[in-house]
């Protein structure tokens, strides 16, 4: 983790300064990519969302619930925000505080989405919410809204394999 922080340090210089800076990393796609292809024995749940996306906000408590439910397991929930980087302090961090978000949040600040969308998943239209679940030989990309039960079913099945 320290390694990544060092790598990303020059990029985070572009983010607004403030108290929340230590909570939210701001990365371009090159900075995000390692999080989408880790190969260890952990299951990664990577949700793409934004504070302005109503269906995304609706499912945030379910991802929080998931993170809490599998806290002791090798499951990592990562929330990739597509909010505007210049609204990090004014909008994203206040939202995270209000929602008491405990999952790790990364802000993807990379406007060239036509380049990186297909690198996340070749079938992704660019619509959010979207969620990548991968690990233990499994990889699936979902362009849909989740309920907690649906997420729980996927993760519990993967863990019992």
């Amino acid at each position: 983790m320290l390694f990544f922080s060092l790598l990303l340090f020059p990029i985070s210089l572009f983010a607004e300064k403030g108290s929340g800076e230590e909570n939210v990393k701001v990365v371009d796609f090159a900075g995000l990519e390692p999080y989408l292809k880790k190969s260890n024995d952990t299951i990664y749940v990577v949700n793409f969302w934004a504070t302005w996306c109503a269906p995304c906000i609706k499912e945030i408590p379910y991802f929080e619930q998931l993170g809490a439910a599998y806290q002791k397991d090798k499951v990592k929930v990562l929330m990739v925000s597509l909010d505007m980087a210049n609204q990090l302090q004014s909008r994203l961090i206040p939202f995270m505080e209000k929602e008491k978000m405990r999952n790790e949040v990364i802000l993807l600040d990379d406007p060239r989405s036509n380049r990186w969308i297909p690198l996340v998943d070749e079938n992704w239209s660019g619509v959010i919410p979207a969620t990548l679940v991968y690990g233990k030989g499994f990889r699936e990309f979902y362009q849909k809204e989740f309920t907690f039960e649906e997420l729980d079913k996927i993760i519990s099945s993967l863990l019992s394999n």
Partner: protein
Amino acid sequence: MKNLLFTVALFLWSGLVLQAQPIAVGSKAPAFSLKNIDGSTVSLADYAGEKGLFVIFSCNPCPYVKAYEDRMIGLHQEYAPLGYPVVLINPNDPGQQPDDSFEKMKQRAAEKNYPFPYLQDIEQTVYPAYGATRTPEVFLLKNDGDGNFTVAYTGTIDDNYQDEAAVEEKFAANAVQALMAGKQPDPATTRAIGCGIKAKK
């Protein structure tokens, strides 16, 4: 075996909920006939005298629409005189997104002095026919001259929503210029982050 069954089940399940993709380039453009903010009805057939048009699915509150709004107006100002006007269609259900009511659409158009029609897909039949999933999403149509229009380009306006000055590829403008030069747009499809279209529940 359990693993395989699970994977198959998951595949089927995800297949069922797979989101629509934009209509394929080269397809016949679906007709529409929708209410404009001035109370008139605007149809695809009304563009029979043009070389083509940009159909852009748009809305009021989406930050990506706001970022691109001036560039949509710019596209119209540049290419309408050359035979390729812009028409905006708001596909969102105002029940789900009150900021997309007909009244709010009128207000937004007045504030920004929209030079093009701003239509409401109130029955939500047009955006699924185009396979649109988000706003803003662009469909460039080419007039075949026989009463039909063909989809020539689908995707985003350019490659940088944040900063117009940093744009490297003007996808939509390049696509229309390709048509004017008698060529196929390349790329003919691009992708972008946008706000998901709010469907009626």
